[in-house]
């Protein structure tokens, strides 16, 4: 089965097939000899490759994992072929658009855009105060502000809708 592992905008393709209980792995099409052992049931794993062992901590879900290797941390998103197709379709439907949500509880200090306004990817949309700090929420992609769900002074919880973007066709 093929799995696409994304690190930001970089993607690696890993194919795993099981032969006689043995894992046969290819990385980006190339055969990759590895042995994999779980040190516990909490994501402490040891991977052996080319005569070296790599102890890693893996946490997360089948779709988003954080892997720590020798103090370095890798945040990866994973898709299998079916999911990939679905996600591509979804992305095609509203590229970069959709709903912008609060990632932490806080208070909306200021809304920097208006409904109908065109915005660039990364352009500040509004300012959320949390942890005694002002946090700027940027646009996930370029498009048009469809609706604004929260106004200045509103207290919002994590996951609350802030505003919706419609994507400019390009």
């Amino acid at each position: 089965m093929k799995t696409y592992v994304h690190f930001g905008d970089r993607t690696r393709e890993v194919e795993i097939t099981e032969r006689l209980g043995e894992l046969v792995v290819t990385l980006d099409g190339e055969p990759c000899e590895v042995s994999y052992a779980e040190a516990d049931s909490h994501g402490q794993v040891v991977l052996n490759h080319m005569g070296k062992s790599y102890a890693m901590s893996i946490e997360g879900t089948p779709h988003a994992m954080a892997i720590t290797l020798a103090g370095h941390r890798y945040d990866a998103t994973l898709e299998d072929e079916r999911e990939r197709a679905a996600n591509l379709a979804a992305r095609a439907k509203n590229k970069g658009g959709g709903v912008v949500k609060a990632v932490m509880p806080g208070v909306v200090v200021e809304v920097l855009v208006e409904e109908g306004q065109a915005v660039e990817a990364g352009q500040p949309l509004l300012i959320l105060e949390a942890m005694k700090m002002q946090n700027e929420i940027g646009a996930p992609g370029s498009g048009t502000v469809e609706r604004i769900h929260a106004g200045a002074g509103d207290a919002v919880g994590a996951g609350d809708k802030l505003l919706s973007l419609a994507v400019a066709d390009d």
Partner: protein
Amino acid sequence: MFRRILIANRGEIALRVIRTAREMDIECVAVYSDVDARALHTRMAHVAVPLGGELPSESYLDMDKVLAAARETGAEAIHPGYGFLSENATFARRVEEAGLAWIGPPADAITTMGDKIVSRRAMTEAGVPCVPGLVDPVDDVETAIREADAIGYPIAIKAAAGGGGKGIRIVRDPSTMESAFRAASGEAVASFGDGRVYLERYVDGPRHIEVQVMFDAHGNGVHFFERECSIQRRHQKLVEEAPSCILDEAQRAEMGAVALQAGKAVGYRGAGTVEFLWSNGSFYFLEMNTRLQVEHPVTEMITGVDLVREQIRVADGEPLGYGQDDLSIDGHSIEVRINAENPFEGFLPSTGTLHNLRMPGGPWVRIDSGMYRGLEVGLQYDPMLGKLIVWGRDRAEAIARMIRAIQEMNVGGVHTGLPAALQVLQHERFVNGDFDTHFLESLDIQSPPEHEGIVAVAAAIHRHRLARRRALAPSDAARDGWLARNRSGTARHVERAGVAGATEGIR
């Protein structure tokens, strides 16, 4: 000696104080907010008093509640730790009015050092070098040009109403002074509706170097040498070390003497830190922190002195009992702060529930931490969860040891700044001691791409296993969901919240 003290703080610093108190056979009273009912400081104290509330203002910042707790439990002294009420002169006064000992400096010293302008005046009178410049705004270009010559170039033109770096103009050549002045006050009007600006010498490539001082109640004072804290980002230090590799013996002694001067000038008592900006061989007074610093352990490691013990002793009226000549530097120490933040996304705060904690150990590794499995890291409090400290015979050994320790460590459930610290420690410029307060911000934090392949394989196989296991035991699915929740996201800080280069108020 006190029989019982109250610690008006939480997290690793509360534990830090409890540990020394236990060693001195002093009972500890912990106070805690609703959020901290299970926190380690609550469990390790002899007595734990709930303050209620979730926000600091409802708990650790509520003077009445804290003083009431001290009264109820018969505490004889209060240690404020850092942050919260530690630099609150009113609280210091109220503690003493309540007949309790205040494990900190006199209220007046706190007041004086707490005000930028007042402290600058006091220090100048005391002959402590400050960044050359004017306290009062200049009205017109002519005065500005005249004053600039007196101050000396490069000149920084700052908006009086400003702060946070907005509307700062750097002028390196007198010929551009006039245009720069007009532009700056123009921008000041635009930004703050107040065009007044003042002039200051611009400090190039500054390093943040601070001196630890300790005074008893009998007029004796010593310094415990310096700490280098230039590896910082937006007023948040990440890596600290002692001693600083940029100072020679002569300047070390000079800086120490100046720090003692600063303390004496305000009638200091207890532990304090005098912060300096160092640039091209000269140093300027920045501010004095009238409390214990987060980074005090690196000083303890190179001097062998327990600073909290000294704080408690002098607060109890004991004389220091030793002089400057009894103190010396042995080896080198480095501290890395473990902050819940995402270094790959501009150090945005990260929240979650801690699990899979793996702490490093072995020779000369010290851990001051409030972390425990199940700790919920929220946004109510400072994101600093703990500190990793190492000692080595020399700087190279200390760096190698810290890298090794970070590689042993794992903190599951939140992002931490450790990968950034690792990148700093492995960076040629850090190793060569060639850095300033802008260094960390200049780095693009990323994990070595050469390992992405092997990591991808591990992740894919792990996913494969999870799918298997979920098929067998649904309970795991729940667990994964739980983990997922804990890796909830982050937000982007507003640039205007900080000033690249400015180091005021750093903790």
